[in-house]
């Protein structure tokens, strides 16, 4: 027996994909992904219409989806993150139905709870055998972890594995087992390796970024959480990586043995693992080649599913035990709500990803962002979109002061600790005022009436809506 079919078209036919169904994709190929475009192009040729695409993330490379929206092939879009190119078209109202934004944890959990139903999942797999055992750790398009694809594989009615590296059965070291897979297709290339992972992710050299990183590392130290058993998540942004570097130096200097590092994993987290800062890494996604190499070779560097990483449908998740997470923001408001979905003009250019999941789980959720970006103040009266609720955010670090969120009856002790450490603790209102002194008071942005996206919280409830731009 073999599940191998000759083409994507044959797989679509065998899955009996029809008008009005929902198909899904993961984003481990990031901005190098060929599979989403390839499948949609085939579907368009077959004349199937009115589909909903549920992709864990949409990148700029997926720009052709705008054409499929315009010609009626795609009439629904669900994702956790959307790059600026497709985001612009959505913000300008190209899609009739509002986009549904979820978090990484929320997407997986909504599938498991059955509130998000996938008819056919297309899983880009850097290596697979003909029965559908597959992994991202091997092959010319290796991306490391494929943690976001687990929920799709386990919950979709039909599952198609798309690979460019077919190996003899059984694949040794599979991530997703054959039991979930209906069909396997080979293609020339599932992605452009240059866009899948960065060669290296680099620490910022921007002096302002380093200043914020330095403050953030001091906040973590002063919080008292940096002790044996420490667990930590950081993104791939320049200032957060620099913070990780400072944290590492402190851990090594004091001989602190942490518990786990989690999230999207970079070479810097791999270094921390190898130098004994952590017992293990829980990896839902790899950001660079060093992380890919590590997850392939080091058993302490473990692949986890989106559910285990950040979901609410399991009995527990990694985020529940997280001590500290470092997060970014385009806007923070006076109630500490954070916007990572839109820019200051209201154009969609991002999404929660794991932002609200980790903020909710971590004991200390730190937002790191410059006080102004190209003149625009970080702190506003009300975010254009609430991506992460203020009650889950603890500290905002800027180069001109650190605001501790004591608005929800917590963090009073933390605030005193930061003051005692002689850190420049200010109120969130002060940050807004400082920015406006420097940049002037921005005129409020006028948005349209039409709702172009609904933002769901990790538990599936509606958190906010995003309006069209004018």
């Amino acid at each position, binding site marked *: 027996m073999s599940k191998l079919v000759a083409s994507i078209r044959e797989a679509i036919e065998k899955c009996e994909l029809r008008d009005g169904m929902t198909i899904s994709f993961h984003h481990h190929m990031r901005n190098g992904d060929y599979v989403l475009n390839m499948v949609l192009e085939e579907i368009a040729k077959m004349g199937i219409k009115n589909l909903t695409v549920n992709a864990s993330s949409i990148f700029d490379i997926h720009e052709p989806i705008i054409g499929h929206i315009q010609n009626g092939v795609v009439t629904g879009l669900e994702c956790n993150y959307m790059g600026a190119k497709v985001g612009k078209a959505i913000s300008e109202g190209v899609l009739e139905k509002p986009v549904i934004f979820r978090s990484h944890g929320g997407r997986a959990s909504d599938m498991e709870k059955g509130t998000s139903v996938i008819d056919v999942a297309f899983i880009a797999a850097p290596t697979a055998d003909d029965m559908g055992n597959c992994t991202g750790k091997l092959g010319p398009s290796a991306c490391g972890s494929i943690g976001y694809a687990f929920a799709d594989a386990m919950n979709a009615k039909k599952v198609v594995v798309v690979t460019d590296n077919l190996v003899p059965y059984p694949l040794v070291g599979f991530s997703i087992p054959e039991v979930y897979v209906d069909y396997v297709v080979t293609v020339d290339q599932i992605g452009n390796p240059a866009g899948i992972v960065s060669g290296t992710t680099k620490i910022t050299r921007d002096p302002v970024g380093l200043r914020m990183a330095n403050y953030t590392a001091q906040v973590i130290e002063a919080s008292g959480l940096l002790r044996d058993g420490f667990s930590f998540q950081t993104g791939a942004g320049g200032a957060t990586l620099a913070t990780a570097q400072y944290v590492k130096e402190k851990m090594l200097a004091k001989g602190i043995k942490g518990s786990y590092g989690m999230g999207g994993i970079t070479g810097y987290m791999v270094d921390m693992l190898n130098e004994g800062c952590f017992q293990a890494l829980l990896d839902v996604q790899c950001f660079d080649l060093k992380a890919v190499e590590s997850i392939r070779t080091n058993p302490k560097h473990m692949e986890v599913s989106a559910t285990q990483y950040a979901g609410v449908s399991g009995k527990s998740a990694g985020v529940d035990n997280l001590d500290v997470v470092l997060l970014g923001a385009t806007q923070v408001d006076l109630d500490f709500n954070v916007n990572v979905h839109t820019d200051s003009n209201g154009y969609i250019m991002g999404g929660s990803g794991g932002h609200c999941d980790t903020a909710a789980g971590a004991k200390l959720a730190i937002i790191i962002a410059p006080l102004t970006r*190209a003149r*625009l103040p970080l702190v506003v009266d009300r975010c254009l979109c609430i991506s992460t609720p203020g009650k889950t955010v603890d500290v905002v670090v800027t180069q001109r002061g650190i605001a501790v969120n004591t608005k929800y009856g917590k963090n009073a002790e933390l605030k005193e600790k930061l003051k005692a450490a002689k850190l420049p603790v200010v109120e969130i209102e002060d940050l807004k005022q400082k920015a406006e002194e420097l940049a*002037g008071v921005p*005129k409020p*942005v*006028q948005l349209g009436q039409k709702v172009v996206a609904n933002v769901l919280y990790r538990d599936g409830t509606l958190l906010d809506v995003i309006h069209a731009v004018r």
Partner: protein
Amino acid sequence: MNIKTSAAAGTLESSDAYVMVEPSDTLEIAIESVVYNQYADQIRAGIEQVLDQLGVKTGRISINDKGAVDCVIQARVETAIKRAGGEG
């Protein structure tokens, strides 16, 4: 001061502005900015203040702003005008 020739000042880097001035019979100010929605009025007022101080009555002033604050924009406008007036 009169704008006698075309001249430019500034850069297109973030937090800076690129300003071009050219001779013209009327006074025209053209603003392109990454923060146009939020700060266009303030940018225009800042430019007009510099024109006033330098006694510039006519000319075409075009600015491509990358999120510069007022004192930076004003510096770039003043530099461009002085370059165009045979000074600096």
